[in-house]
């Protein structure tokens, strides 16, 4: 999906310079057309192109919200409205009686968009999909109502004149280059974000939210930054729009425009920059050449949206993704190389211990965990077994911070670990895998593993946006350590393959590689052997054992008794949320109650 899409896609070494060039060529061609268009000296084309640039400035930001973060912001036209009225009203002196200089008013429009981008985005931090979609829709409805009613500022239904920008971007080709330049800038910064660790984190929030949290990604912080950026771009686009329109009324901001933005992004493909850019431009320009269809254009856009959603949810970009149709080698073997672990794990940390004391957890009236004691030491593999519903995964979720126990203590080296903030666990170097692999299907295996190291960057969101040196250093380091982690688990030959093309067993190893990116002090594995062949289980066992010998404390929740007895240093058996037995594998094997409970399972 990201192939060929972003010119600065550092993560896409597979196709090498060719792949990068392929993407760059499209941009260079687009840029040349834009730069040279004024040579035609056709003001009609000029106006159409300006509108396309303005729409794209908004869509570029919205693309991060919709295409990357997967938040269905259908009413983003509201940001355009806000930016337009702010710029127009300030320039016309309708607020406070002072006539602002147009450029300053434009910046104010951007700021207005940024503020409301965050306000409208807030519900997305807690809710997904429909509620958020409805919030943005409601906001768009209300902004229009306010624009109609607040006559002093907006001129109500009569409207208000838009600003006229003075030299150097005066109306005509000056303003054209203004729009063009800002569109190029919007493209550049959003492409930078898209190909940075922040972009990967956004996609992870979209496709594998729980895994993103476990990797230490703070959804709230990241989304606020993105809503801020998308709102600002929407506001600036609005300011430009008001100037292009020269006179604005609430009618100019129809909900249909939102649909256009949205569909442009979806057609282009989620998680791409070039695709949505082309989509937006084509949708803006097309009706100009099909005059009889103009009144039906919204209907056709909506019909297109329905077709895309039902037939090709990945967008056109997915259809063109010929690289992912090349067959993979059929009989692949995963050959982990535990000897590489010394370069992956952090040997510096001293011995540490994770302690659960008297933990209790209720779901409604059901006691999922009922007074559990457990101690996991670095350098050991600790097996956790028991029948279905005995509380194994629940215990794991308590440790990784998803559940707050109703009683008991969870301590790391004697200090309390906080609850309710699962993304904070990564900071303590506690990593985990999941019973069902959580992955970003459309991203490469390498990118999936890089997500695991998101917290290990020093560059800020703004630095990534502007492609400053620290951003490049982060990328280089993340990529190298991800490649090492992949080599360790034996998947380096698949680094550039889309993750959703992997076999189930390969995904299990990929999750371990992602967890290793944290150089974990503790690694929690939730049924890593499920669905693996006997030979793969043997190799997995050797890898897990080697990870523990590298100094990591491993908690292994597993059903495969032979694996547990083979590699564990200690085993705890749970039944009905309580410890039934604990001891060495040999002790457990001869424990009468365990044998009957386990066999009975």
């Amino acid at each position: 999906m990201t192939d060929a899409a972003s010119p600065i896609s550092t993560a896409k070494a597979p196709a090498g310079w060719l792949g990068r060039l392929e993407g760059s060529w499209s941009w260079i061609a687009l840029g040349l057309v834009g730069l040279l268009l004024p040579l035609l000296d056709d003001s009609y084309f000029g106006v159409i192109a300006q509108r396309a640039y303005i729409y794209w400035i908004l869509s570029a930001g919205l693309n991060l919200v919709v295409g990357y973060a997967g938040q269905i912001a259908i009413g983003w036209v509201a940001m355009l409205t806000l930016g337009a009225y702010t710029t127009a009203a300030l320039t016309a002196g309708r607020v406070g009686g002072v006539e602002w200089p147009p450029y300053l008013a434009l910046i104010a429009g951007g700021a207005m968009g940024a503020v409301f981008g965050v306000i409208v985005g807030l519900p997305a931090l807690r809710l997904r999909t429909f509620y958020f979609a409805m919030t943005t829709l409601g906001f768009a409805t209300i902004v229009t109502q306010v624009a109609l009613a607040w006559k002093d500022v907006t001129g109500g239904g009569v409207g208000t004149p838009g600003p006229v920008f003075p030299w150097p971007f005066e109306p005509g080709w000056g303003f054209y280059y203004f729009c063009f330049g800002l569109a190029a800038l919007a493209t550049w910064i959003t492409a930078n974000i898209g190909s940075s660790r922040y972009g990967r984190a956004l996609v992870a929030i979209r496709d594998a939210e729980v895994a993103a949290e476990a990797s230490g990604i703070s959804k709230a912080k990241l989304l606020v930054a993105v809503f801020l950026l998308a709102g600002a771009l929407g506001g600036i686009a609005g300011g430009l729009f008001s100037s292009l329109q020269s006179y604005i009324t609430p009618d100019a901001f129809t909900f249909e425009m939102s649909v256009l933005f949205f569909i442009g992004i979806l057609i282009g493909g989620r998680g791409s920059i070039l695709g949505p850019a082309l989509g937006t431009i084509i949708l803006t320009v097309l009706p100009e050449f099909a005059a009889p269809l103009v009144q039906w254009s919204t209907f056709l856009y909506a019909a297109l949206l329905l077709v895309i959603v039902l037939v090709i949810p990945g967008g056109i970009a997915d259809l063109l993704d010929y690289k992912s149709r090349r067959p993979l080698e059929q009989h692949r073997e995963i050959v982990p190389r535990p000897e590489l672990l010394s370069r992956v794990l952090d040997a510096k940390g001293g011995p540490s211990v994770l302690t659960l004391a008297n933990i209790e957890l209720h779901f409604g009236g059901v006691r999922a965990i009922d007074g559990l004691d457990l101690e996991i030491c670095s350098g050991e593999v600790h097996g956790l077994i028991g029948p279905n519903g005995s509380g194994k995964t629940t215990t794991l979720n308590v440790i990784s911070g998803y559940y707050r126990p109703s009683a008991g203590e969870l301590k790391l080296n004697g200090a309390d670990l906080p609850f309710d903030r699962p993304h904070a666990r990564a900071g303590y170097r506690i990593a985990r895998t999941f019973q069902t692999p959580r992955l970003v299907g459309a991203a490469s295996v390498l990118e999936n593993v890089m997500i695991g190291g998101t917290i290990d960057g020093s560059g800020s969101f703004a630095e990534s946006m502007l492609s400053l040196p620290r951003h490049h250093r982060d990328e280089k380091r993340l990529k190298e350590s991800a490649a090492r982690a992949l080599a360790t688990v034996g998947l380096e030959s698949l680094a550039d393959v889309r993750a959703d093309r992997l076999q189930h067993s390969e995904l299990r190893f990929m999750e371990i590689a992602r967890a290793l990116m944290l150089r974990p002090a503790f690694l929690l594995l939730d049924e890593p052997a499920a669905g693996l062949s006997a030979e793969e289980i043997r190799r997995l066992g050797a890898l897990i054992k080697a990870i523990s010998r590298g100094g990591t404390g491993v908690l292994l929740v597993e059903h495969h008794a032979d694996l547990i007895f083979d590699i564990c240093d200690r085993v705890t058996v749970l039944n009905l949320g309580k410890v039934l037995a604990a001891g060495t594998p040999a002790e457990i094997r001869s424990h009468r109650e365990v044998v009957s409970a386990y066999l009975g399972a």
Partner: protein
Amino acid sequence: MPTSAPRSRTPEPLLQVSGLSAGYGKIGVLSGVDLTIGSGEVVALLGPNGAGKSTLLKAISGLLPRTGRITFAGQDMSKADPGETVRAGLVHVVEGHRVFTQLSVIDNVMLAGYGLPRDKRTTQVEEALAFFPDIAAKRHDRAVTLSGGQQQMLAVAQGLVRRPRLLMLDEPSAGLSPVLVDRVLAAVARLREGGTAVLLVEQLIEKALAASDRVYALARGSIVLEASTGEDDLPNRLERAYFGQDAHAPLAS
């Protein structure tokens, strides 16, 4: 140990499953399961955690997509959905006594007869409730007020409304006190007397063996053992089957 052909004392097979594979998305759970159940037979399906027992039941009843061949009472059920299997008399009581807590006991049982003519439904609902006098007495209470054991009985009662020829029970004893477990298993015995076949997934091996004619063991998604419950040395053979051929010394027992 591979499955042997149906025994001579097994009457004509009621359910015949061959080469059944199923899973969840990419995760294959069952691979090539063969299994046969005769009319009126009680068969226990045992296996360690995660072996795929519930998946097998779901695949048979059509709750999960699957490949392979399923024949029930002479009809091809390989592609049937749950509605069709239920109407054919193959009823699956899913695990976790998932009754409708907001509805009354009688409504829960009535729903199991959805689509039957009214008179027939009323008769069969009363028949099913007659198996469990405890819950019949609470017929107008909402199911949320029942205890876990009573909810389980209600779930089994739902399964009986259709007068099934084969009833598949998934862990009916989970979370029940020993007394209630016996109550549920007694119902199984009464069903057998009435000629209903039962496929029983059970945690409590000894009780399951006592209630059954035959046993299948499932491990890692395949049938690893098929035996009559009368055979010698069954517990040890089960252990070996569970832990695979490469298990070390047999577990103490």
